[in-house]
């Protein structure tokens, strides 16, 4: 029986689908990282939104969501650093290749 209380968790379900679409179709890893965060936000909305009573909101899922948000930012930060490092390495490889190419022709 759908109720108005389902509005936010349903929004969460939509975010999960949208985010997954982003992960699949976006090719740049930073954009994928952003999409992953959208999925995470959707899951949190489902977790917290289904814990709402008529008068109060269950503090238990709220705490789980806060834990989840912190874990998400930790992983996102590492992922972002990894993306930058990969780009840096590829840039360095391109530069070396360019230097070698000019060296050969000279």
């Amino acid at each position, binding site marked *: 029986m759908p109720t108005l209380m389902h509005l936010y968790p349903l929004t969460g379900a939509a975010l999960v689908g949208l985010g997954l679409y982003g*992960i699949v179709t976006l090719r740049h890893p930073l954009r994928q990282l952003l999409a992953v965060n959208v*999925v995470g936000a959707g*899951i949190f909305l*489902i977790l917290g939104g*289904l814990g709402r009573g008529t008068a109060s909101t269950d503090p238990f899922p709220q705490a789980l969501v806060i*834990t989840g948000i912190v874990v998400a930012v930790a992983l996102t930060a590492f992922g972002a650093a*990894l993306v930058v490092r990969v780009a840096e390495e590829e840039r360095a490889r391109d530069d070396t290749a360019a230097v070698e190419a000019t060296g050969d022709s000279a």
Partner: protein
Amino acid sequence: MSPLDLLVAVPLALMIAAVLLGSRGRLLLLAAIPVMAGLTVWLLLLPEGTAHIVGDWNLPLGILLRADGVAQLLVAATSACASIIGLYALREFAPGPSGSETAHGYAFWPLFYLLWGGANAGFLTTDLFNLYVALEMVSLAAVAMAAMGSLRAALQYFVVALVGSLAYLLGVALLFANYATVDITLLAGTARPDLATKVALAVMTAGLLIKAAVFPLHGWLPPAHAAAPAPASALLSAIVVKVGFVILLRLWFEAFPAIVAPAALDVLGWLGALAVLYGSIQAIRQETLKALVAYSTVAQIGYLLLAFPLVVTAAGSDRAWAGMTIHAIAHMLAKAAMFLAAGLMLKAVNGHRLEDLSGLVRVMPLTVAAFGLAAISLMGLPPSAGFIAKFLLLEAALEQGAVFQAAILLVGGLMAAVYLFNPLSRTFAGRDTPVTEAKDTLQTAAPLALGLLAVSLGFAGQAMVDISAGVSQAGPPAAAVGEVP
């Protein structure tokens, strides 16, 4: 006092020390090994079904820690693998000659303890959300270690692992909303075959299959495992993939056995069979040693899933359960031994291809022997632990008339023989390769010890079967359950 929490707390305390000291503090490992060994023995000696809550908070609010057979065996194997891999890594991740430290040398040690503590936390808890946090501890350490080898492969691994974790977390959210608890022992008592439960189980399983690198979701594993430094590869293949596998066991056989359709188990069994065949064929085709060993992991994970339909069937289910669990720890020991041995061999010849190995047995016989011992267990030859596992599974399969599974078990063993014989035979044949690396006793001993353990554990087959049977099917200890609204 209880080993259930200390097995997590001690590695975390060591992680703090490692953050403070970096590779200068790496010799703390020598203190950690006896402590963790003692805690592991204690864990193994605990009476069957020992469990207690954390702090003073009963279920469903609190978190229950429990020593069942799976946890006991996997924690023990993790202790053995981590200790020996750590000893091997002492030389690899050490300060340079002038006392200067590298980022890898610094970061390896905190990540190592994070992985160790996270894996133990995952094996010992019965709480699905707690398992999520443990899973992320392990994944984070694993990706960072993979990045020490290949950044590209690590990035791919990272995205895949993140998607797997999120799928798992989505299931946890649905289960909590549906049952107002995320404790496996409580879920087992109240499980209903409703839509939310089925969707939750489906997305969690999909996420965990990705994390455990089950065919066809294995694509990330070979590049990441093959490129990482040898100790990191060993940790990834031995320990990390087992965490996802154990959560699958918890979900399918503990929380929801009552509502799982046999057809669903058959699907997992099929996936396992495909993984065995595909991984083995790929391993045979590889021309570099570490890629071969990595594809062997894909194949060996397949056996774990192959056993799923055997376990739920009543007849001989104990044997299939034991075979599956023992296979998990046999693979841990053997694969850790194999990656360490492979690392030493490749470093010695300064190459990575199979043909670089020619004549190596004359130069480093002990390392080749370690590789061979690990191969014996992976092929499932007696008297190894791998043999016990495959024998139990085969017996269970034949008893249940599961000819298909039995055939896969035999074919998989033969294919393992093919792909593992190839590198071994190269070390015996041909010209001698010039060897560059100076010998290090500890590093030579490490894979040998793991290989010997993998083979000799076969003699403890009955003991392992007995331990693995220690599943507290009876539900949570009465004292641990509070007022359920």
